[in-house]
């Protein structure tokens, strides 16, 4: 299976690899948010989805948020994503 971040790590060898070992997010047009490296959900509602990451917490707020995929390490959120904040 294609993994965007693995490709990125392979191509950007000069970048400190530790930077990519934390959490990684990709926001596609504010409609889909792909997350890699989460440590578990903390809040799950239609307007707010929050999850733990390494050294912090991320909150995704918006409308009609749907957790369309959740695995041990990754998740995919779909909906009207208004804001992604790190705490």
């Amino acid at each position, binding site marked *: 299976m294609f993994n965007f971040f693995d490709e990125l790590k392979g191509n950007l060898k000069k970048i400190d690899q530790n930077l990519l070992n934390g959490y990684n997010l990709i926001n596609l047009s504010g409609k889909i948010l792909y997350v890699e490296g989460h440590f578990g*959900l*903390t809040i799950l509602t239609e307007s707010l989805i929050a999850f733990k990451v390494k050294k912090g917490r991320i909150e995704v707020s918006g409308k009609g948020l*749907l*957790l*369309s*995929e*959740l695995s*041990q390490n990754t998740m995919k959120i779909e909906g009207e994503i208004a804001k992604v904040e790190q705490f």
Partner: protein
Amino acid sequence: MIKKKSRSRFKIKSLNREKIFNKISQKFVIYDVIEHDGFIEFEVDEHDGEQVENFLNQQNVKVYSAVHKGLRRKFFNLLKMWGVVAGLIVGMALYCLQYSFVFKIEVWGCNQLSESEITTFVKKSLASNFKGNIDTQKLEILIRENFELVSSASVAIVGQSLIVNINEAILPEELYGEFEPIVSRYDGLVTEINLVQGTLNVKQGDIVQKGDVLVYPYIIDGDGEQHPVQPKAEIFADVWVESEDVFHEYKIVEERTGRKIECSQVTLFGLVIFSNTNENTFKSFESEKTSSYIAENNVLPLIYTKYTFFETKTTEIIRNFEQEKDNLFENLRQKALIYLPENAIIKDEKTLVKEMAGVYYLSYIITTSLDIGEGYGYTV
């Protein structure tokens, strides 16, 4: 590529759903988490469905519904339906079993032989309908031995049919049995005989009538013995086609003028209860009478009788035979030609006139040559 989703969908209620999802996601991938009316619905891969359900039960999470979707699940569900499985197995077993038997016997190539006769014989010859017990070679020999007209036979099992292919022997016609004599189809004078086989009953110059035997269906050998044969011969004869007419030089014809008088009456048991009588003033007339019941149910047998008087007049017709004879004979000729067979060759034509007190009896005779042993019959 279209990927068919085979997933299990759960509907649960839990106060600490995030914690539950975090635990589930440690081992399984969760899809499409939806919350409504206090319930949480989510999906997992179908093959993880049972484990997730067990996990939820272990966690004391109340599962309100667990729906397993996908072809694989449907197939396994179908297998769990023992009735269907049993039916399938029994059906397949019956199919395999019946495939081992022959249910139909087809006989091909019969022209003179009866198909049903051979079919009956084959049925009787078969020990059983089980394919394994059918010896096709033995059947072929049996058919050849029991049917003289069979020169060769091949027997094959195709599907659930036993195909018997027959080649019939071509026997001389003489062995077929009864033959019919050649009989004359017309009255005529025999003019030419070309005999191929058979025994002649007529000779050149004989006058024959329709139905007379021309050639007998046998030959007589040197020892005087009769041998049946199919009679074959061409018997040509002069056949006469005749048309006739009568011509009157003086004739009185009575014909209706078109004027008529009608009278009617109604009777009941013979008593006249109504009458409409008009006086008949015609000097010469013909009358017609018609009667019918007025009521169809015959409750009252009222009979309506109608009399019609037609005025007639008498006309004298005087004609001259000599002036009209050409037309008369031409009409008679055309009348005679109608009865000639197609492409018949006219050998001779002649007219006969017999006069008796102003009445002429006319005949037109066409002589043609025909093979009277065959062809088309006709009458004048």
